[in-house]
């Protein structure tokens, strides 16, 4: 175990994937702590590490073709907004090829991008397409909320024969935590990151550290909050989430994505459908308001699923 940042943990997993398997290739930029000092291209060669032109559909489609021919690409779109330009190869090719070939073909690609509100990024650079991708059968969607999850989910994604979307968030990159590196891919499930007895908060991505901070301050009032890192948002870990709700009887689901038909909505719907008898009060959602992301940092803060809104939701479940 070693202490490291979210960014370092993610990059170490990418480095291990490229080191261990010559079929692994990388399209797009990944850098920073945990990456090879001189960069991935220097470390693994320009034949395996490509810096593609700004044409998301072209390089995503090239990655799908490479995967169908035996390679295991990792593709970074950078900002999630840019991923819309690659919708066709991701949701209509990679996601469906296995089913359409009766299991004879697989498309082991890891698609990576950043989501989340960023002050000043404004509407066109702040899209949060994670829930839209959960609506694409054949895709796995992961969204780590801790350094440990950043490492483990990248290891699992790159080891899987399924196309996986890895939802990253810049706000998490400096979060520190204990991570065991150099280990094989593990089954990805929701994980209790703080045990509690009164309320379960199922948090996605950047909402995990926010929920942990709220849990810490409510502890002083004697309110015990269990925080669950959802980790896999499609297919959702229904059993793992229900186990936590069975312990606490209350649920808040939170995601930095749109509220309507969003990931938090899916978590609440799943628990309401399969664990209604476990609930002592109505579940709550905390997500981004259903408006375009504003340029103004003040307005940005007003629509965000903030710590205050998580706390308010927790208190509402306790009334």
């Amino acid at each position, binding site marked *: 175990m070693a202490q490291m940042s979210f960014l370092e943990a993610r990059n170490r997993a990418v480095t291990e994937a490229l080191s261990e398997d010559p079929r692994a290739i990388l399209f797009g930029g990944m850098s920073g702590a945990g990456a090879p000092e001189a960069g991935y291209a220097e470390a693994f060669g320009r034949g395996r590490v490509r810096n593609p032109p700004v044409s998301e559909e072209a390089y995503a489609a090239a990655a799908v073709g490479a995967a169908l021919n035996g390679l295991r690409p990792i593709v970074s779109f950078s900002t999630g907004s840019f991923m819309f330009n690659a919708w066709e190869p991701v949701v209509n090719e990679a996601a469906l090829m*296995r*089913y359409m*070939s*009766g*299991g004879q073909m*697989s498309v082991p690609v890891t698609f990576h991008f950043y989501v989340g509100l960023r002050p000043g990024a404004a509407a066109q650079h702040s899209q949060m397409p994670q829930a839209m991708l959960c609506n694409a*059968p*054949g895709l*796995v969607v992961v969204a780590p909320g801790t350094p440990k999850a950043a490492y483990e989910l990248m290891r*699992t994604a790159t*080891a*899987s*024969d*399924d196309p996986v979307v890895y939802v990253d968030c810049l706000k998490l990159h400096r979060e520190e935590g204990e991570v065991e590196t150099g280990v094989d*891919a593990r*089954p*990805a*499930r*929701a994980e209790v990151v703080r045990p509690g007895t009164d309320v379960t908060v199922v948090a996605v991505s950047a909402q995990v550290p926010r929920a942990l901070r709220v849990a810490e301050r409510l502890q002083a009032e004697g309110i015990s909050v269990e925080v669950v890192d959802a980790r*896999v948002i499609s*297919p*959702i*870990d*229904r*059993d*793992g989430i229900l186990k936590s709700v069975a312990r606490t009887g209350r649920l808040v689901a939170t995601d930095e994505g749109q509220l309507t038909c969003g990931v938090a909505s899916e978590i609440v719907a799943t628990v309401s459908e399969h664990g209604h008898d476990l609930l002592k009060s109505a579940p709550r959602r905390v997500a981004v308001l259903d408006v375009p992301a504003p340029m103004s940092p003040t307005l940005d803060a007003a629509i965000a699923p903030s710590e205050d809104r998580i706390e308010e939701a927790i208190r509402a479940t306790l009334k």
Partner: protein
Amino acid sequence: MVRATLLEEVLDQEGILKIDEDVRATVAKGQDAARAAAFPAAERAFQDALSGGDLWPR
């Protein structure tokens, strides 16, 4: 290709029609076998949507 085959005298018209007939018969045989087979249960019909295994929740 049919025209080229005839012009190059690789096959005559009768030979071409025989290939066509053989292909039709093979396709019909495959369709008959598929239609006669038991319809798969829904859970089996979609098992190839993901590769399976225990890496992801079910």
